[in-house]
C-alpha cells in the first residue's frame, strides 16, 4: 500500500498533493491518502474524488496550524498503524521541513526530489537530480518498509491523477497528539512580498520578456492573461526593471513552474529562464528573432511582432 500525505493550509489543498497521488497510482497497488489538520471536511471530500482506497483524516486541534513536531508525531503514529510499503509526499517546503525528521524518527530511508519512478518486478528505482541538476541518478531504497519518497513539483501531472467512479470512503483516524510535546509555536505567517503569488500552482501562465519594450505595454499581456485565465509572469529583465514584482519572475533566480500552458511573449529563452519553465506541458513562444533559443523548446512558435499578434489573440479569445 502506498500512503500519500496530502498538504493543506486553511482547508485549501496544495495542488502538488495531486501530483503525489498520480505518482502513487503509477507505483501500483492500493493508494491511501492521509490528510492532517483541523476541520477538514471540504478537502477530505475533494480528495475522496480520487481513485484511492480511502482517505484517512487525522483531525486534531494540535494540528490546526502546521508544526514540524505535530506532523512528525501524528504521521509516525499513523504510519506505524497503517504500515504502508511506501509513503509519498510532494517535495514542498513543508515536506522539506518535517519529512527528514519523520524518516529519522522511524529509522527508514528517505528519497527526496524524485522526478520519475521505474518499476521492475517488485523493486522501484527512483530518478532524482544530483549536482544541481547536472546529472540524474537512479537509486533504490533498501531496508524494511516503509520507504519515504518526495516528488519534485511538476514532475508528475496533477491532472493525471485518476478519479474514482464513486467517492472513496473517508475515515477518521484516532491518533492522539500530545500538544505539550510540540516545541514550535507558529506565528502568523509573514510574506516578504506584499502580494505573493505562487506561480507553481498556476495552470496557465503568460510570461513577458524584454520584447515587451516598455512598462505601459504590459497591459496587453495582462489582457491576454485575463482572457486566458492565466497568471502573469516575466523573465528577469522585466522584474529587474521593477515593471513586475520579483515574485512573478520565472527562472533560475525566480520560480520554477510547470503549468499546462506557458505563453512566452518576447522572451529570447536564456538558459536561466528555460530551467524555470521547461517542465510546462505546452510552450507557445512569440518572438521577433527566429534564432531565439526559446524556439528550440517551444511546442508552437510564432516568429513575429507580439504587438500585432497578441491583440489578435485577445480579440479571438474574447469572442
Amino acid at each position, binding site marked *: 500500500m502506498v500512503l500519500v500525505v496530502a498538504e493543506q493550509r486553511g482547508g485549501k489543498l496544495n495542488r502538488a498533493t495531486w501530483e503525489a497521488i498520480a505518482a502513487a497510482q503509477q507505483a501500483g497497488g492500493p493508494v491511501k491518502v492521509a490528510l492532517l489538520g483541523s476541520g477538514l471536511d471540504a478537502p477530505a471530500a475533494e480528495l475522496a474524488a480520487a481513485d484511492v482506497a480511502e482517505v484517512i483524516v487525522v483531525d486534531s486541534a494540535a494540528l490546526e496550524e502546521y508544526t514540524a513536531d505535530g506532523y512528525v508525531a501524528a504521521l509516525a503514529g499513523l504510519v506505524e498503524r497503517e504500515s504502508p510499503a511506501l509513503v509519498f509526499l510532494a517535495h514542498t517546503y513543508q515536506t522539506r521541513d518535517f519529512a527528514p525528521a519523520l524518516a529519522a524518527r522511524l529509522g527508514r530511508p528517505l528519497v527526496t526530489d524524485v522526478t520519475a519512478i521505474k518499476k521492475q518486478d517488485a523493486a522501484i528505482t527512483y530518478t532524482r537530480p544530483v549536482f*544541481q541538476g547536472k546529472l540524474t541518478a537512479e537509486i533504490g531504497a533498501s531496508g524494511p518498509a516503509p520507504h519515504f519518497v518526495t516528488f519534485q513539483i511538476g514532475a508528475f501531472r496533477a491532472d493525471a491523477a485518476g478519479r474514482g467512479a464513486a467517492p472513496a470512503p473517508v475515515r477518521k483516524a484516532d491518533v492522539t497528539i500530545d500538544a505539550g510535546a510540540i516545541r514550535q509555536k507558529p506565528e502568523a505567517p*509573514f510574506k*516578504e512580498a506584499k502580494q505573493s503569488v505562487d506561480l507553481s500552482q498556476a495552470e496557465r501562465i503568460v510570461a513577458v520578456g524584454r520584447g515587451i519594450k516598455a512598462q505601459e505595454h504590459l497591459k496587453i499581456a495582462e489582457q491576454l492573461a485575463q482572457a486566458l485565465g492565466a497568471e502573469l509572469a516575466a523573465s*528577469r*529583465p522585466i522584474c529587474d526593471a521593477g515593471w513586475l514584482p*520579483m515574485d512573478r519572475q520565472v527562472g*533560475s*533566480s525566480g520560480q520554477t513552474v510547470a503549468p499546462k500552458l506557458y505563453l512566452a511573449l518576447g522572451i529570447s529563452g*536564456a538558459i536561466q529562464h528555460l530551467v524555470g519553465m521547461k517542465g510546462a506541458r505546452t510552450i507557445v513562444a512569440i518572438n521577433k528573432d527566429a534564432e531565439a533559443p526559446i524556439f528550440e523548446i517551444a511546442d508552437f512558435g510564432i516568429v513575429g511582432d507580439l504587438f500585432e499578434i497578441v491583440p489578435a489573440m485577445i480579440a479571438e479569445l474574447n469572442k
Partner: protein
Amino acid sequence: MPRETLEVDVLIVGGGPAGMSAALRLAQLQKEKGGEPLAIAVLEKSREAGAHMLSGAVLDPSALRELVPDFKAKGAPLASEVHDDHVYFLTRTAKLRFPLTPPPLRNHGNYLISLNRFVKWLGGLVEAEGIDVFTGFSASEVLYDGDRVVGIRTGDRGIGRHGERKPAFEPGVDIRAKVTILTDGVRGNLTKALVRRLALDEGREPQLYAIGIKELWEVPADRVAAGTVIHTMGYPLRMEEFGGGFIYAMPDGVLSVGFVSGLDYRDPMFDPHVTFQHFKRHPLVAALLDGGQMVRYGAKALPEGGWHTIPRVYADGALIAGDAAGFLNSMRLKGIHLAMRTGMLAAESAFDAVRAGDVSSSRLKGYADAIDRSAVRRELYPVRNVHQSFTYGLPAGIAYAGLSLVTGGWWYRDPMPAHAGYERMCKIEEYYRDGRPDPDSPVRPAKIDRKLTFDRLTNVHYSGTRHAEDQPSHLIVHDTDICRTRCRTEYGNPCTRFCPANVYEMVDAGDGTRKLQINPSNCVHCKTCDIMDPYQIIDWVPPEGGGGPQYEGM
C-alpha cells in the same frame, strides 16, 4: 538590534590557499610550541570552502610539501602529475610549436589540480584542527583603532534592494582580533581599503592585472592523455596585447580550457570573452573540444605585476598574504604555491606577535623580512620586470623574458616603468582614427553556436552563480551619468566587454539613448570591473554572504 562581537587572537579573512595555509600553519605552531591555545577563525564569503576558487591550475607542490608533508596519504586531490608540456605560437589558422619548452613553462614534477577541490580539502584539514571556518560570511569593512587594525565587520544580512531592512535582517558581526591576516584574494575589498588608508603602496609600482576565463569540458577520454599541459601565445591576441591560452588535460576526459588576457590593453573595444571564443574556434582547440560538452564556466582576475607592485604587507595589527598582496609569478603562470607560502609566513609572524603581546607593525615587519629571506623573493625578484616588458608588445616581452633568465632581471630602469591598465586604455577617437565602431557590438565578433562558443549569459549559468535577489547591488557605480554620456563617447562602455558575466548592459533608456543596467546577481566575483573601469568609479563590495559562483572542479 545589538551588534554581536566575537573576540579571537588571529583572524584570517578569506579562505583561499593563502588563508587556509595560514590557518593550518597556526595550528601546527600551536602544537609545536604548546602553551595557551590561540583562538583562530577563518572567514570565507562563499557558501562552502573552495566554492569561489578558480585557477588553471598547475600546482608547484613546494609549499604544500612543507605544509603537509604527507599530503598524498592525507588524500590531497591532485588530479594528475604533469607529463607533457607543449607551448604553441598560434596564428589565425596555424600553430607553431616551440622547439624547446621555455624553462619557466616546464612543469615536470608539478600537478594539475582543481583549485576549488584543493582548497576544500585544505579547509577540511583546517577544520580537523578545530579551527572555525565561517563560510557564507563576507567581510565588509576593516575595523580600526586609530590606524591600528583591530578586526573586521561582516556584512549585514537581510537588506532589501533599496536598502530597507527585511524581516530577517541581521546586523553584521564585529570580529575583533589581535592580528588580522588579509587573504581576500586578487583586488580584495578589505586589502584595497587598507592599502589606501595607510598608503601601503607608497613608492610601489601600480599593480598590473589580467583576467582568466575558463571552461571545463568533457571530451572522449582517449583524446588527450591526462597530465598534458598546453600553453599558447599569439592569436587571437595581437602583438600589442598580453595573454595566452591554456588547455590542461585532467583524467577521465576532463579538459580545463581557458584564456588569460592582460588587463592592460589599449584597444577600448577589446573583449576578453569574445577573445576566448576565438581561441576555442582555433583549429588546435576546436579539434580537442569537438563533440565534447562544456560543463562549467568561471572567471577570475590575476595580479600579474610582480615584485615591484607588492604593497607593504604589514601594518599595526594586520598582515596581507597571497593574491591580495600580488604574490604571483606571471612568468611561470603560478601563484598558488606563493599564496600558500606567504600564508604560512604570515601565520608564523602572527603567532610570534600574539605570543609576544606586541602586534605593532615594527614586530609584524618580521613577516616582510621572512619573505625577503624565503623562496618567494628568490622566485619573484629575478622576474620583477617581465610582465612590465610585455606592455611594450609581445616581441619585446619575449625578448626581455629570455634576457632576464640570464641577467637575473636587470634593466637599466629598475623598476621598469608601467602604468595601471585602466590608464593605458585609449579613448575610441585615439584608437580608431578611421571611423568609430559601434559600442554595442564586437569589433571582431565570434560566431556563437552554443556548442563550442557561448554568449556570456549562457556561460554564467554554468558558473552556478546565485545571489539573494532582493539585496542592494554589490557593484557600486558612483556616477552612472558618466556611463550614459562621457564613457559612451570616450570609451564605448568597455564594462559591457571586460565583464565576463553580463553584469553590465547598456539598455534602451526609452528616449533613444542608452543607460546602464547592472545585473549584480550574475557577478562571478572576478573583480575585473573594479580594476579596469577607466574612470575608476566602480567599487566591488561583497554581496550578502554566501552569494556568488558555485565552482566545482574549477
